[in-house]
């Protein structure tokens, strides 16, 4: 299946019953998949919205009723969703936002890119909040992490972003869908009409600064728990590595190809791949610096995750960078050359 379709199928299997989206390349297959397959899902709702802004607010409304919800877009469209993401974080509404990144800034182009790392991991919208950001790198992981995203969103009542790119969205890979976990979402958080009981309201507006401050600290404590419990990463051939490439998503796939070549030439190079970009696996990466002293951050950007790597490794190890922004996708051979030069200089 194509990456975009995998996300759609995984979402429906995870119990997503409300999807709203607006066309934008390179994620259209996902919107189309939801249009076709929500029809067969019991209680499933698909809406082609008039804008990304409307889409995020539609899923916010549906999420408030207790339904599992998702929207998707690509970079310029994700800009428009930031208002709603901030609002969902404030109102503690679970929901999944898929960003199939393309080249930017501005309209950029429709080629794969990783230029939205800052936007995804730094909140993007206004205010003191974080968004859980999952970064799959294979078709299988697109399926697994999409399903996990719904559980995470429910558990922490917060929006979760799946950050992939045009390459991930368009590529075809075999996939086995795991069984979805049963959902336990407390009814007290659902807005379904008061019945005979007390009415509820959901809001992000807290005019009293002391109330607002407490709300912010409450969110902060939640984010601390997420950092502690939900940080994900993968290490590949790092045990004996003299040099480690730090990359996520498509860049990590390219890095694997490069590492294969480099290993064949006798160079001990490994890969550290964050699977959650927020929370960033800072401590795990730092731990690696006890055995490896040279790290190369490789991104399809001018260097965004680089800043998180610096926070983790500055003073612990030597940090290099290689990036191709704006929709350019380097080959494993190109990356291998870059790595080899640094590797030999190091000696």
């Amino acid at each position, binding site marked *: 299946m194509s990456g975009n379709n995998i996300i759609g199928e995984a979402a429906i299997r995870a119990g997503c019953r*409300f999807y709203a989206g607006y066309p934008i390349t390179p994620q259209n297959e996902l919107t189309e998949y939801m249009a076709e397959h929500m029809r067969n899902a019991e209680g499933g709702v698909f809406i082609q919205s008039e804008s990304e*802004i409307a889409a995020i607010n539609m899923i916010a*409304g*549906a999420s408030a*009723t207790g339904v599992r919800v998702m929207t998707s877009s690509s970079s310029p469209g994700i800009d428009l969703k930031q208002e709603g993401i901030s*609002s969902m974080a404030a109102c503690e509404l679970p929901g999944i936002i898929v960003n199939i990144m393309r080249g930017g800034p501005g309209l950029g182009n429709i080629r794969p890119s990783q230029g939205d790392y800052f936007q995804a991991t730094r909140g993007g919208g206004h205010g003191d909040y974080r968004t859980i950001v999952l970064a799959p790198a294979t078709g299988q992981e697109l399926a697994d992490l999409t399903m996990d995203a719904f559980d995470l969103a429910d558990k922490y009542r917060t929006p979760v972003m799946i950050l992939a790119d045009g390459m991930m969205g368009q590529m075809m890979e075999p996939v086995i869908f795991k069984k979805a976990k049963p959902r336990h979402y407390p009814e007290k958080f659902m807005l*379904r*009409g008061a019945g005979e009981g007390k009415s509820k*309201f959901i*809001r992000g507006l807290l005019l009293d600064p002391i109330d607002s401050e407490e709300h912010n600290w409450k969110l902060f404590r939640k984010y601390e728990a997420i950092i502690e419990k939900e940080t994900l990463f993968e290490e590949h051939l790092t045990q004996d590595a003299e040099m480690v490439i730090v990359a996520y998503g498509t860049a990590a796939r390219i890095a694997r190809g490069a590492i294969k070549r480099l290993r064949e030439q006798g160079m001990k190079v490994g890969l550290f791949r964050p699977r959650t970009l927020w929370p960033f696996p800072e401590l795990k990466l730092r731990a690696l610096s006890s055995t490896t002293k040279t790290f190369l951050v490789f991104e399809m950007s001018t260097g965004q995750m680089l800043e998180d790597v610096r926070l983790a490794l500055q003073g612990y190890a030597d940090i290099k960078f290689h990036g191709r922004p704006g929709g350019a996708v380097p080959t494993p051979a190109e990356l291998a050359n870059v790595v080899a030069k640094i590797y030999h200089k190091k000696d």
Partner: protein
Amino acid sequence: MSKIVFQHPRSLKHAIFHYCPGCGHSIAHRIICEIIDEMGIRGKTIGVPPAGCAVLAYNYFDVDMIEAPHGRGPAMATGIKRALPDRMVFSYQGDGDLAAIGMAESFHAANRGENITVIFINNAVYGMTGGQMAPTTMLNQKTTTSPAGRKQALDGYPVKVCEIFSQIGGVTYLERCSVSSPAGVNKTKKAIRKAFQCQMDGLGFSMIEILSMCPTNWKMSSINSCKWIDEVMVKEFPPGVYKDNIAAMKSTMEDRP
């Protein structure tokens, strides 16, 4: 035997309105709550207040509510209604919310014929932010951002929401009223009730525009504010039923197998 002819609506919380004296919001709130009581729908009603003075509506309405970002009420109401089709869902929006920043959401919710009700408060001004020019500000009306009065050449024309929305296929019921007189309040109540019934019957999108006083930002007394609606505003925004497709929609429903 004594008969109760007037009492505090059950669906209206016992809270003191934060609205300015003479403001139309509190009247609109009250009549919506009266209708909710009369229709016995408190337990199944979900309201979506806007950004603006009515952002605190959840302090007054004793029904489930969720606040929408500025202008996004109809999108959020769409999400709620599609997820829970048997609930009564209304958004409550001001003129800036509906006809400026949220025009796209309002227009398209209407065009999809979402089975929701929009309560549209038109007071020709941005109230909460301190009286700036709204899309419905009258020509030559002075506001803090049109200090010399709204000029067509610079600011365009007052947006006539009912006139525009009456052309949208998905709209079933559309009426403009005012709460500037007892007769207007009664009419407004009837209109909202009709709109709610339209939704209950599954007949599609309904919107009630309410010409509403904002004495503070108009810099008028409460009485003069009512007069200004009755004598000036109604010329630009004539009250009346702008679309009533209820009978046609009903017969379409009956034709369905």
